[in-house]
């Protein structure tokens, strides 16, 4: 799915940006460098960003400005990353967060 708005009557043509690769739940996808992770994922039609701890309910983008924390995911091993305000970087590994996520504990 491609939800990108390439042509816009007011904003014009989408400016060319550097393309990068992200790994999302093990699958590779293309994104623009420094666009919010959430935008890159929404472009592919992904809606469920995390599932709640107690009831395992799905959550997705809600406020898009970093306030509500509904869009948190595990990014490069760190849970609770607000994807709507976190710029995408090449090679990032992103996972749907289940509940509170996994915190790596060093032995």
């Amino acid at each position, binding site marked *: 799915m491609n*939800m*990108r*708005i*390439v042509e*816009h*009557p*007011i*904003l014009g043509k*989408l400016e060319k940006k550097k393309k990068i690769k992200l790994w999302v739940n093990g699958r590779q996808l293309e994104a623009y460098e*420094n*666009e*919010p992770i*959430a*935008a890159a994922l*929404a*472009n592919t039609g992904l*809606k*469920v*960003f995390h599932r709640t701890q107690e009831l395992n*309910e*799905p*959550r*997705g*983008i*809600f*406020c*898009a*400005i*970093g*306030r509500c924390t*509904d869009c948190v995911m595990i990014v490069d091993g760190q849970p609770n990353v607000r994807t709507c*305000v976190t*710029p995408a970087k090449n090679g990032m590994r992103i996972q749907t967060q289940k509940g509170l996520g996994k915190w790596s504990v060093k032995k």
Partner: protein
Amino acid sequence: MSGAELVIVGAGPAGLTAALESAKSGVEVVLIDENERPGGQLFKQIHKFFGSEEHQAGRRGYEIGYELLDKCKEAGVKIMLNTTVWGIFNKNTLGLVTQNKTKILQAKNIILATGASENPLAFPGWTLPGVMGAGAAQTMINIHRVLPGRRILMVGSGNVGLIVTYQLLQAGAKVVAVLEAMPKVGGYQVHASKIRRAGVPILTSCTVVEAKGADSVDEAIICSLDSQGKNIKHTEKKLKIDLICLAVGLSPLAELCWMAGCKFKYLSALGGHIPVHDEYMQTSIDGLYVAGDLAGVEEASTAMEEGRLAGVAVAHSLGYITKQEMEERKKVIWDSLQFLRTGPFGEMRQKAKNELIKKWSK
């Protein structure tokens, strides 16, 4: 510990004009924003603003944004991006986080221009992916250039609901309907007319009762409301949609004001608990100013004027301009504000603002 004459929190319309106005007078300004880029919500305002020539009427928000940014840079405003202000201590000390490190910044004066956040609306299924704020959808389409849905239900016919509906249409989506719980449209008639002539129905006395879908919304149930605002039985209708946008008002982001110990007043016309401030935008705490939606939810145009006002006041308090200069500039800004606060929507806000200022002076 570093310091500055003036720290402005929030680089939206109010923060940018405050920075510009004070920097032009010679104030050393640090402007902080938690985002990658400055501009706040200005850059997602792609419609032409109302107003008069001197108020940039007919210009689109993002154009004003670019211009303000250029001018701020010219005036020597130091902009710190990706920086979150998480606390305010002893009335003049800010706790910041930037790149995972916390530090402290002391300010002789602080202008808070943190804006507002969208109100949610709770109904069964409202937490499902595919239910989002109208402003969120606006951010997605106009800033990130990604459509969050293709068949959309807009809840709320205030100006935000109407404008975002129009912009969703411009972005290529279909808006199935705009719902309004009240018996009449909330926003300006001209905004409503734009989307009506594009074929979007506006259903008044109507609300969303449920969002359905397994992992994301695929259906909305709507229902008519009686004169008491209660659901009328057997009027439920199903709408096939993939996105519900909520445009049910905004609330000031006042955490820093609360933390600083500012006095507040509840004014529903301005969006809720508003930090009490004087006619120069100074709060109940010396040297702490507010501007923009934080000082009462209004419009970008009023936010910019309030920012200017706070900037002028700070420039005077630091001795860069005389009292007379300040008063002269204040008068121009106040005339402008009063002008922007006319009409059926503006008058309500003007009244509420007057109450705030009255409370402060007591």
